[in-house]
């Protein structure tokens, strides 16, 4: 088979990538623009990054975003892993199909609906909106992604390893912590990173559930842009893109490695 790329293939590749990434590239490029005018190139400068770090409102929003992302990702990882364990280990329990559907629902549910319903819920139980409501809302959103990642690892898990541990005298809980957990850890970390990045760049659900005193970076950027484009926002976005890219790449590598190692051990 001819593996060389034809001119047609190269062209489609370039057009495809350009379509996907040109806007992002432009944004990153203009974050290094010396000119205050966003659309006019005035030479290379990192001054907007400096300005960004002096902008307390933006920095405050960034700090909130990081804390929300970390906390919600942690919660989602614990809950998502437990859900994955229930789905792979308890076989057929009554209501399994319903449970599976409910776990995966937030994945396909329009974000506006999720955001709105959570808002209604928090209002109904009289929960003051702010840091905690965003965190809880993000946990709801990201849990299912952790479940998917961890579940796919558990499906290829050799159960006789756990039986061997029990046979050698380890009670179920100790078996879980000394054998199961270390072996599925890469997929759990991957799930965490995925949840973290999802929480970081979410705008819709966060804006429904944010309150006074707790604004996340995406909300801040969105409202800043409505007042006009500013190179500072470009700089903030560029950093955000960097973090998200890093998170997604490590998550992909980790889950790939985890599945590869489980396959290798099967032989």
């Amino acid at each position, binding site marked *: 088979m001819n593996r060389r790329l034809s001119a047609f293939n190269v062209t489609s590749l370039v057009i495809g990538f350009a379509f996907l990434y040109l806007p992002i590239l432009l944004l990153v490029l203009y974050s290094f623009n010396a000119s205050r005018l966003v659309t006019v190139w005035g030479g290379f400068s990192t001054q907007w990054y400096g300005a960004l770090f002096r902008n307390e409102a933006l920095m405050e929003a960034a700090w909130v975003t990081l804390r929300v992302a970390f906390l919600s990702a942690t919660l989602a990882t614990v809950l998502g892993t437990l859900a994955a364990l229930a789905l792979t280990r308890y076989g057929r329990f009554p209501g399994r199909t319903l449970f599976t559907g409910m776990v995966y629902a937030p994945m396909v549910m329009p974000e506006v609906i999720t955001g709105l319903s959570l808002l209604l819920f928090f209002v109904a139980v009289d929960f003051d909106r702010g840091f905690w409501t965003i965190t809880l809302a993000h946990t709801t959103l990201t849990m299912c992604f952790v479940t998917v990642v961890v579940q796919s690892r558990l499906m290829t898990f050799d159960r006789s390893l756990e*039986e*061997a541990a029990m046979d*050698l005298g380890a009670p179920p809980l*100790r078996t879980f912590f000394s054998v199961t957990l270390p072996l599925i850890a890469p997929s759990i970390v991957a799930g965490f990173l995925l949840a973290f990045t999802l929480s970081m760049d979410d705008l819709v659900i966060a804006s429904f559930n944010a309150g006074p005193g707790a604004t996340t970076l995406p909300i801040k950027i969105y409202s800043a842009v409505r007042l006009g484009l500013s190179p500072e926002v470009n700089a903030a976005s560029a950093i955000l893109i960097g973090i998200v890219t890093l998170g997604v790449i490590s998550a992909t590598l980790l889950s790939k490695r985890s599945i590869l190692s489980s396959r290798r*051990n099967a032989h």
Partner: protein
Amino acid sequence: MRRSFAPWANPDAKPLIRFENVTKRFGDSTAVDHLSLNIFEGEFFCLLGPSGCGKTTLMRMLAGFETPTEGTITLGDQNLAGVPPYRRPVNMMFQSYALFPHMSVEKNIAFGLKQDGMPKDQIADRVGEMLRLVQLEKLARRYPSQLSGGQRQRVALARALAKKPKVLLLDEPLGALDKKLREETQFELMDIQHDLHMTFVVVTHDQEEAMTMADRIAVMDHGRIVQVATPGEIYEQPKTRFIAEFVGDVNIIEGHVQGQENGLWRVKTSSAEVPLTIDDPDEVLHSGQAVAIAVRPEKMVIQRDPPGQGAINVLTGEVWDIGYLGDWTVYRVKLATGEILRVTRANASRFVQSPIEWDEQVYVTFAPDAAVILAE
């Protein structure tokens, strides 16, 4: 020394493991069906049977991974009902070895000892002892993915032996090894079992493996035990046609009982003109009963010249096939009825004057006590 070991023949001996009327059902299918079995201390016991016969389920019930639907299992004086696997004085070597991939060889072996809260220096001593036993001292710090199949098998064995269990369960222990290594390992396992005076229960579908290693074999079929006996008895006195055909090669000749003369059974068959004479005094049969006569290929004699007047158990046919195996030659002889007999002859001398050839008319005979009568 080993020959005299036969606690099952002693009515006063107390079995170590007792299965009493044990049944295990998975939904509609019955894996183990009202099974009773005694295994004695120090025995090398083999559960032998085709796949799906329930042997693995039986072993998993002993390890505690499955609970019997009915019946009781006792180990020593302890009823095992409700005892979880991690509290049973039984260890298992898994078919897949189930080595912990994130632990080195020594950590794998130490795992069980750690669970018992053994002090660190004692663990180190015991691990060293186990590594010497399976000759893996040099590989202590390797990980399972860095080992060959044979080495992994040894680590799995060492890990299961480390806690000095009362009973060691081995699930198809040699299944993943190649033929040469398998043979060596069979003898090693026997030596280890003998030296440690431990009770071994092995599940296998390989009859040769069972014959080589076991003190006694239980042949299982469809969730039941068909026969429990020493390898010799299983081979020479199979109870049923299934066992005769499952263990080793056999020629089956079907016929009907004609009667008994001088303690010998006369069986009328379509394969021979004269009724066959069989010396199997333990069988209780009645005239006209349909039976199968089982004769092992090596117990039949093949010859070119007609046997003398009054010779018994003579079958005539022509040579259909000859297979030369070096130590043995296998003759396939086709009788007038179309049946094909398998006859083997040891090649005791290097040269034969005029060997039996293809398509030759031959006579096959066997002694009355070479055959076993199996009631249909």
